[in-house]
């Protein structure tokens, strides 16, 4: 395995690609009790249409998430979640628009648990009965999401921003769309997306990287499959399809997300664009920004206010949001602030401080094994190494961030999704 040292952050990263195409990364951590492993596929809710063996396959919304739920069933009748738990591990999985991750954390019997993880994720086993039963369970999950203002506000925003990209649709699908899933659909999607060449394994803990390599070799299929090609439809234009969407739900104060879509960079610009996006948003709306301080003092924003740059399934979305009695006023203030930054540029001293703060935040992020492993996994699929971030940060300039804000948060690029309170008389 290849190793690379990161003396600035006190880490060493071991990497390899197995003959079957699996990308493997290991971060050894001496002195820690916990082990963490994530086995991920470059497949999420947005990968609905794809080309497999020369034919185009269309799948209903919600398959990736459904598949994630069903992967835990083993042909022996056992459930992998229970087997891992019984072994003292804390396993789980999640599906986003662009990725499905299976992971566990444990303190004992790591190798056994790792073998089990690799085994169950590469062993498809579905029957008509188990699929039908799962339709009930996931149907409940979907209905629970219907009560959740956080889910509604997010998808309403994506609906405003994107004309047709499948990330518009809920990862879990709808009760109707998942009713169309059969065991055949699941086998097809597993075959297409769960081949080692479309997956990665990332491990952190007090381990020997060569051991991990050997275990992955032993447990996974040997052949190297051609990864499927996802079809997200024609490219999206820069402008949103709608500007404002309001909906009423049982919340105590209006919640809002302001968003804009950006064109994701490719090649060796990928990581840089993400760092620029985060730093630019921190300068614009972080807790030490004049914008946040002013609106907080005016009572227009509270401490929940946050921002993020989210890169998923070939899309890039900037989101700023929280709770406010006057979301539209926040939007107007934001537009004014972006215009001011465009005209005046960013304060250099404040920019240097923001970089310091960003370095501190990255060091803090390295404390979490799940954060490290999942960002490494996402980086492997998107073509960068998450551990390079701390070093690259130093070279980002204030002008780059100003230009980024000017271009991507111009007034015509913005949309706002609002959830207003309905009368929630407690009975």
């Amino acid at each position, binding site marked *: 395995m290849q190793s690379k040292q990161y003396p600035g952050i006190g880490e060493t990263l071991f990497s390899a690609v197995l003959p079957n195409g699996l990308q493997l990364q290991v971060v050894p951590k001496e002195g820690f009790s916990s082990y963490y492993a994530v086995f991920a596929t470059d497949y999420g809710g947005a990968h609905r249409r794809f080309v497999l063996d020369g034919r185009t396959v269309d799948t209903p919304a919600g398959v990736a998430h459904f598949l994630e739920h069903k992967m835990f069933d083993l042909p022996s009748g056992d459930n992998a979640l229970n087997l891992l738990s019984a072994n003292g591990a804390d396993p789980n999985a999640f599906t986003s628009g662009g990725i499905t991750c299976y992971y566990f954390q444990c303190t004992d019997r790591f190798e056994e648990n790792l073998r089990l993880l690799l085994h169950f994720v590469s062993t498809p086993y579905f029957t008509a009965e188990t699929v039908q039963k799962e339709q009930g*369970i996931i149907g409940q999950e979907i209905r*629970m999401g219907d009560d959740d203002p956080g889910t509604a506000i997010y998808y309403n925003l994506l609906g405003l921003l994107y004309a047709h990209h499948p990330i518009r649709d809920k990862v879990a699908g709808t009760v109707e769309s998942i009713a169309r899933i059969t065991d055949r659909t699941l086998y097809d999607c597993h075959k297409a997306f769960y081949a080692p060449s479309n997956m990665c394994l990332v491990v952190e803990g007090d381990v020997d990287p060569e051991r991990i390599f050997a275990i992955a070799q032993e447990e996974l299929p040997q052949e190297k499959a051609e990864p499927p090609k996802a079809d997200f439809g024609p490219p999206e234009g820069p402008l949103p399809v709608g500007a404002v969407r309001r909906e009423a739900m049982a919340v105590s104060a209006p919640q809002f997300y302001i968003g804009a879509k950006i064109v994701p960079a490719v090649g060796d610009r990928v990581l840089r664009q993400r760092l620029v996006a985060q730093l630019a948003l921190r300068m614009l709306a972080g807790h030490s920004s004049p914008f946040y301080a002013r609106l907080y003092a005016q009572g227009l924003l509270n401490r929940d206010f946050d921002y993020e740059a989210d890169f998923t399934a070939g899309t890039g979305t900037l989101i700023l949001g929280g709770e406010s009695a006057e979301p539209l006023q926040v939007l107007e203030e934001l537009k004014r602030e972006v215009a001011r930054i465009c005209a005046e540029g960013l304060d250099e001293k404040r920019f240097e401080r923001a970089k310091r703060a960003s370095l501190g935040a990255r060091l803090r992020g390295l404390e979490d094994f799940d954060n490290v492993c999942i960002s490494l996994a996402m980086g492997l699929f998107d073509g960068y190494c998450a551990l390079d971030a701390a070093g690259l940060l130093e070279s980002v300039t204030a002008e780059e961030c100003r230009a980024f804000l000017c271009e991507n948060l111009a007034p015509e690029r913005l949309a706002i999704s609002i959830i207003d309170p309905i009368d*929630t008389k407690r009975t």
Partner: protein
Amino acid sequence: MELSRTELMPGVWLSYLPSKKFKTACLSLSLLTQLSRETAAMNALIPYVLRRGTARYGDMEALSTRLDELYGTAIEPVVRRIGEIQCTGFYVSFPEAAFLPGGQDVLRPVASLLGELLLSPATRGGLLLPGYVDSEREKLLDIIRGRINEKRSYALFRCIEEMCCCEDFAVGRLGGEAECQAIHYQKLTKHYRKLLQTCPIELFYCGRAPEKQVISALKDALVPLPRGEIDDGIGTEIRMNALEAQPRFVEEALDVAQGKLVIGFRLGECMEEPDLASLYVFNAAFGAGTTSKLFVNVREKLSLCYYASSLLDVHKGLLLVSSGIEFDKFEAAKAEIFAQLEALRHGDLTKEELAAARSGVASDLRSLTDSQGELEGYYLAQALDGDGCSPLELAELAENVTKEDVVRIANSLECDLIYFLKNGGEQEGESDAE
């Protein structure tokens, strides 16, 4: 990794935990008070008001700028309830010198800023700024009112509120809406000054700096702390039995798509000499995690719910079973939850189930040592309980818990109240359980 305790000033204790594992160090400060309806909201509000500005860094922007300079040091207000002790203060995390350019050490300036936040707030005429108090009070009110937004935690909150209606515990960590609404900057300043003089203070540090340096930095930072007669009589009253002979039943209707069933238990006589390891293992076997009776039977086998899990509060002596169900599954889900408890009471616990519960608890405790935030919470609770066991020692005890221990706890449990959040807007009152 050995914890050491030092009294820095009267009633001010430091728990010092050396560790070279982390990239950041953590420092926390908690003011300890007896949870009560009259003062809970004021206590909860104080760190948020203090976090708005100090005499030197007068507003959020100036404070945040200072924190950015200190390499993104994070100082967050924290309000907790451990049993009936309310802990309010700050949790600070800052990068270790080893990873900063030129090996700069920010411990001293960080400790000093923490001291300033606590002791030298922005004031006018010696009073906390009305603008800060008013706006933070409104935000706290929003949070208190916002409890209803998240239905799963709302149902838990309501179950505790009804179950402990005669105890201070019902107040919740943030206090009540009416008491919060009544907060005024003069009254709050007076209360704040009294707290500084009387309440016990717990400090926690975990990181690479030698103990001497930490003690010296904190002592210097806390020089202006006025100490009067320390209120060391604070504690938690543990009720062993249910309030009434039959479990009470409370039903509430809101516009929701999924019903929430919460069943509240008293841990009962086992709380006379609480055996933490056995309590944790019992909880794991009954309802925490994916090998528990509730998960395996109520959720997986019978598909009666989307989730069903149990939560333990060892400080107050409570156990709550929380589940999300279809409205018409109420009776079936409730019956099955009680059936699973009954099974445990009769010793229906396989070797595998016990082993899974033990190793789950032990694993959680061991992995806790890899997170400063969790270590801080663990040792704060321990400082309040006065028990001296490390997470690794407790993990070992958990691995030796027997089936008899688990059965004994199952038999000690007493159901006190059943709460159901159902759909609709109709007025529903309290009724007796059938």
